[in-house]
């Protein structure tokens, strides 16, 4: 029993990070109808930048400075990515989705070229504190992840519900044509969602590193979990992405403990196919009725 509890707890923790990745993918898809396949590569690059700035490959800074600098580079990179594919965005969703793969390839190549193909270890500056609560081990890392996730999702909620740019985002994702008629700049809203997604990707990839390891491919395969979470949530729902992330995190932990650990990606495939069969519009859509 204690096993199950521990596994579920660990699943929730990594699920929070999958959720953060998934929110980025959903944000971009909702505003610009592009599936950003470069998300994993960009987030991986971000984690590597932090590593490079703290561990000496690119510099030797304090953690705070390294994170802020990487954040700035990430914002620039996301803006640049959007700029590169922007001529395609209103022409064809298919072509722009394909072009994100091109961006992903370039980013992947750059990461390998600058940081090499080796696996590196990146330790977060967290206290080595842990507590035992009736068989449930809670470490400082777990609490950090939960806290950061709550903070990020809370901030995102306020941003989307309360600010002008958030209202614009909701308007554009509901009806781009009507928003344009009202004088909203679609490009600006797209840029907003791409940049927010990039920031979320950076946070998620930094926090996932202690549980896995950092190599030029590990973070991009972590993003498959984020994609699966987005599919479980219905791909257009932000709360769905959060629920999907936690669902995927918990299920993955249980499956790899009780069935076999070497099938991570196969479980993802099975989850995606099963969810598409049972809830084609995502798990949250079941409650909503259709308007005739």
């Amino acid at each position, binding site marked *: 029993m204690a096993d199950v509890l521990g596994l579920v707890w660990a699943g929730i923790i990594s699920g929070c990070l999958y959720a953060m990745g998934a929110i980025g993918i959903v944000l971009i898809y909702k505003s610009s109808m592009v599936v950003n396949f470069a998300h994993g590569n960009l987030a991986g690059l971000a984690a590597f930048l932090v590593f490079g700035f703290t561990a000496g490959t690119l510099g030797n800074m304090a953690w705070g400075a390294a994170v802020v600098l990487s954040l700035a580079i990430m914002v620039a990179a996301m803006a640049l990515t959007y700029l590169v594919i922007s001529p395609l965005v209103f022409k064809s969703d*298919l072509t722009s989705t394909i072009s994100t793969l091109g961006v*992903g*390839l*370039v980013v992947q*190549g*750059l990461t390998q070229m600058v940081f090499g193909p080796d696996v590196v270890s990146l330790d977060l500056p967290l206290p080595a504190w842990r507590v035992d609560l009736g068989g449930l081990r809670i470490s400082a890392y777990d609490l950090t992840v939960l806290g950061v996730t709550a903070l990020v999702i809370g901030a995102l909620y306020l941003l989307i519900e309360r600010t002008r740019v958030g209202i614009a985002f909701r308007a554009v994702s509901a009806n781009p044509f009507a928003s344009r008629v009202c004088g909203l700049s679609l490009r600006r809203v797209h840029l907003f969602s791409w940049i927010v997604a990039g920031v979320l990707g950076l946070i998620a990839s930094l926090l996932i590193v202690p549980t896995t390891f950092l190599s030029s491919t590990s973070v991009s395969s972590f993003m498959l979990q984020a*994609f699966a979470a987005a599919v479980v949530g219905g*791909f257009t729902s932000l709360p769905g992405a959060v629920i999907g992330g936690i669902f995927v995190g918990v299920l993955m932990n249980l499956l790899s403990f009780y069935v076999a650990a070497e099938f991570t990606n196969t479980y*993802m495939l099975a989850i*995606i196919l099963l969810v598409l069969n049972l809830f084609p519009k995502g798990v949250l859509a079941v409650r909503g009725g259709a308007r005739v």
Partner: protein
Amino acid sequence: MSESATIAAPLERSASGLALPRNLSWPALLIALALVVLPLVAGGYWVFTLGICFANAIAILGVSFLVRYGGEVSIGHGVFAAAGAYVVALAEKYLGLSVLLSLPLAALTGALLGMLFAYPSRNISGIYLAVATMALALALPEVLLYFSGVTGGYEGLYVKRDALPGVPRELQRYYLPLAGLVAVVVLLRHFRGSRQAMALLLIRTSAPAAESFGVRRSWARLACMALSAMIAAVGGALLSFSSTTVSPNSFTLWTSIFLLVGSVVSLYSLSLIGSLVGGLFLTLVPLLLAGAGNWVPILYGGALLAVVLGANALPAAWRKRLGGGQS
């Protein structure tokens, strides 16, 4: 509507052209003839490389078919190619069949796999298909390694048996993929005029119109994936024959993404020349850049972006002539 008219245009042109049957065009015929006589003058290295290039070109045709007729993108076609390749290798290992006999089996396996895989997302948007194909591509190496007793694990399997007894081995590994490529292109040309192709193109252009004619979207999705996966499986089967080996390393997520890059570089063309351009790009770039491994993804990504953005920047009339994908 304009889109299906676009794709129809080259057919009409060649139909009103010279005395050739309408399934053929002069430049393609000349290139095919040149490729047939090429082994007489070129060295063994080029013959080997081109054989692999033809097999890649077939797999690229599979991806292009899905983009053209289905309007969907797949980043998992490496899996269907792997299915074809492993069917050939396993048929040789356990049944002692040569590639000519196992090729239909590989095609059938590919088609079934494609259908099975498209079934869950048959009614919904293509983005789900794309994401699911990504998961499929990532899952494949795990499955292959787990069943290493059958699949040979990391080392993979060998394809050694000759297809045609009496013909030198290098020439077989050149001519068989070439024949396969020409056959697939001719069949695709023929398919273009069929009722089924019309129905697929109609549903891509306007789903409501197609449904009012009784063409179901789920049928279109399944049919597209089955045919496209079948073509990719044939490509994979011939690839295993001409490279003589199959291993999980040759079918990773990157393989699938590279196949898509090849398809984009060929402008999603279903012609002989287009697919050859894609196949050559895919096969030759890593060889030319053998010393600089990290440049390969950058170059592939850059080429993909350049082609996509370049085709988009062309004037609308040119774009129509090229007829590349959804413009």
